[in-house]
C-alpha cells in the first residue's frame, strides 16, 4: 500500500533516478573488476572500441559480435590443438601448444604467483589480535575514566585525546627507527604492538560508559563487589553494542592497513594482504586478468563481512541511541 503511494509522488521518481545513476557509478568499477577477472588476455587486450562487460564464458551467443565469434572460434581451435597434443605421450608433446583459457585461470595464476594463502593468514592473525586486544585495553581504560576519580585524570584524558590529532606520517619514521633498535622489524610484534592502544576507542567507549548509572557502581561496591568484578560482570555485558561497532571499525581499518606494514616488514612470510597485493601489482604489470582476480580476492571477504555485520551494526547503533 505504502509503496504504491510513494511511487505516485513524482519527486520520488526523480530522487530514485538520481540515486540509481549515482549507485551504478559507485558499483560499476567493482562489476567491471569482477567481470574482467574471468576474462582471458585475448578478451582483455583488445583495441576494439566496443565495451563488452560479460566474459566470453557466460555471454549468450546472440550478444556476440563477429569479432567475439572469431575470438571464441580461435579459442576452440586452441582447445582442439591442446587436446590432440595431450593424446601424445608426454615426451613427444609440443611445448609451444599452450593450455586454453579456463574461466578460473586468473584466480589460479594470482593464487600461485604470490603466497596469497599466507598473506590471508597473516592478515587474519594480525587483524583479529589487534581488534580483540585493543578493544580489551580500551575498555579497561574507558572504565577507569568513566567510574574512577584519580590524580591527573583530566590531564591524562586530554593527553590521550591529543594523540588523536597527530598525523600518522610524522610517527612513521621515529617508530621505524625505534622498532629497528628493538630488533622488531620483520616480526609480528611490529605489526601488532603499536596498534594495541587506540585513543579513539577509549574515547568512544568512555562516552558509552558515562551513560551507565553511577548508583549501580556504588551499590555493587558496597555489596562487596570488587572493581574488576564490576567491570567484567556488569559493564562488559552491558556494552556489547558499542563493542560490536568498534570491533567492525577496527577490523576494517586493520584489514586495509597498508603503509605501516609496507614499512616495517619486507619478508614475504610476514606480508599482509594489502602489501602482498601491491607487490603482486608491480610484478604482474599488465596482466589485468590476474590483477583483477587478486583485487576481487582481497575485497570480497570484507564486503561479505560488511553485509553479514550490517544487521548487527544497525542494531548496535539503534540500541546505543536508545540508551538516553
Amino acid at each position, binding site marked *: 500500500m505504502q509503496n504504491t503511494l510513494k511511487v505516485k509522488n513524482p519527486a520520488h521518481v526523480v530522487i530514485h533516478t538520481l540515486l540509481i545513476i549515482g549507485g551504478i557509478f559507485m558499483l560499476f*568499477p567493482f562489476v567491471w573488476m569482477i567481470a574482467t577477472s574471468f576474462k582471458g588476455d585475448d578478451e582483455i587486450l583488445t583495441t576494439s572500441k566496443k565495451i563488452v562487460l560479460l566474459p566470453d564464458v557466460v555471454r549468450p551467443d546472440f550478444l556476440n559480435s563477429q569479432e567475439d565469434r572469431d575470438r571464441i572460434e580461435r579459442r576452440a581451435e586452441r582447445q582442439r590443438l591442446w587436446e590432440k597434443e595431450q593424446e601424445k605421450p608426454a615426451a613427444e608433446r609440443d611445448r609451444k601448444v599452450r593450455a586454453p583459457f579456463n574461466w578460473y585461470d586468473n584466480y589460479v595464476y594470482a593464487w600461485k604467483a604470490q603466497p596469497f594463502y599466507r598473506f590471508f593468514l597473516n592478515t587474519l592473525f594480525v587483524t583479529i589480535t589487534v581488534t580483540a586486544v585493543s578493544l580489551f*585495553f580500551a575498555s*579497561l581504560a574507558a572504565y577507569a575514566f568513566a567510574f574512577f576519580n584519580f590524580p591527573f585524570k583530566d590531564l591524562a584524558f586530554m593527553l590521550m585525546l591529543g594523540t588523536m590529532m597527530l598525523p600518522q606520517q610524522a610517527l*612513521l619514521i*621515529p617508530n621505524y627507527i*625505534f622498532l629497528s633498535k628493538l630488533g622488531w622489524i620483520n616480526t609480528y610484534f611490529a605489526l601488532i604492538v603499536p596498534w594495541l592502544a587506540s585513543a579513539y576507542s577509549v574515547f568512544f567507549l568512555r562516552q558509552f560508559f558515562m551513560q551507565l548509572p553511577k548508583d549501580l557502581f556504588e551499590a555493587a561496591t558496597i555489596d562487596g563487589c570488587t572493581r574488576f568484578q564490576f567491570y567484567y560482570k556488569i559493564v562488559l555485558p552491558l556494552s556489547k553494542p558499542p563493542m560490536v561497532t568498534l570491533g567492525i571499525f577496527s577490523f576494517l581499518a586493520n584489514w586495509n592497513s597498508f603503509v605501516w606494514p609496507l614499512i616495517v616488514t619486507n619478508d614475504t612470510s610476514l606480508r599482509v594482504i594489502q602489501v602482498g597485493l601491491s607487490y603482486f601489482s608491480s610484478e604482474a604489470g599488465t596482466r589485468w586478468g590476474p590483477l583483477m582476480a587478486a583485487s576481487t580476492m*582481497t575485497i570480497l571477504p570484507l564486503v561479505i563481512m560488511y553485509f553479514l555485520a*550490517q544487521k548487527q551494526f544497525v542494531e548496535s547503533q539503534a540500541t546505543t541511541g536508545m540508551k538516553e
Partner: protein
Amino acid sequence: MANKRNKDWSAYLYLMPVIVILVIFHVLPIFYSLAVSFYEWDLIGSPEFVGASNYLRLADDPMFYKSLWNTVYYALISVPLSILFAMLIAMLLNNPISAIGLYRTVYFIPVITSINAVAIVWNFIYHPDFGLLNKILDIFSINPQTWLQDPFWAMPCIIFMSVWKGLGYNVIIFLAGLQNIPKHLYEAARIDGANRWQQFRHITWPLLSPTTFFVFTISTIGSFQVFSQVYMMTPRGGPLKSTMVIVYYLYRKAFEQFEFGYALAIAFVLFMIIFACTLFNKLYLEKKVHYT
C-alpha cells in the same frame, strides 16, 4: 569521600596498557622526530648534528615546493568536490523513499574496500589502450587520452578516484547531520511560501554548517596526508613528477634514499601546515558555523 578517592592511584592499573603504548609509539616519537630532524642520519652510521641545515635545504628544494603545490592542488579540488557530491546525495537520501538501506550500503561499499585494490581497478579503467574510460569517451567521439601517463591528467585522475572512494563516508556523516534538523522548520518555511532553493539557503545550509565544518576539517587533514593511491597508481611520482605529493616525497626520502633527518624535517613542516590549516579552520571558519 571524594577526596579519598582522589588519591586513588590504582586506577592507573586499568590505564596502564593504553598509556604505555600511546606514550611509546605515539607521544615520544613526536619529540624524537623533532630532535632527529636536526641531524643527518642514514640509520646505519652515527647521526651527525647539522643544526637547522635540513630545514634550510628544504627551503631551497624545488622538489619540495613541487610536492607541496601538488598536495595543495589535490586538496583544493578533492575537498570541495567531495563535500558537494556528498551533501547532494545525503539530501537525496534524506527523503522518505523506499530502499534507503540498500542505497546507503551501495554508496558505502567503496569506503570499506581497500585503497590498494581499488587503485588497481582504476589503473585498468584509466588504461590508455584497453581501459574502460577511453572506450566510454569513444562513444561520444572524444579522443583517447593517456590519463595516468599524462602530466596534465594524472592528478585529476587520482582526485576523481579518491572522491569516488571517500564519498560514502561523508554521505553518512551529512545524513546524520540532516536528520538532526527539525522537520517543522521546513513545514513553516513551506507555509511561508519558500521554494526549495530558499529552504536550502536559509534552513539546510546554516543548520548543517557544524557538520560541513567537521567534514571540511577532517577532509582537509586527510587530503594533506594522501599517499596510498599515489603510490599505487603513479609509481615514482608520476609523469614529470606531476603527482609527487608531500607524503610520497617524505616516504621516498626516508625509505628509498635513507635520508632520515631530511625526511623528518619534511614531516615536521607537513605537521605544521596541517596544524596551521586546522587552526585557521577553527579560528576563522568556525565563526561562520551556526551552532544551535
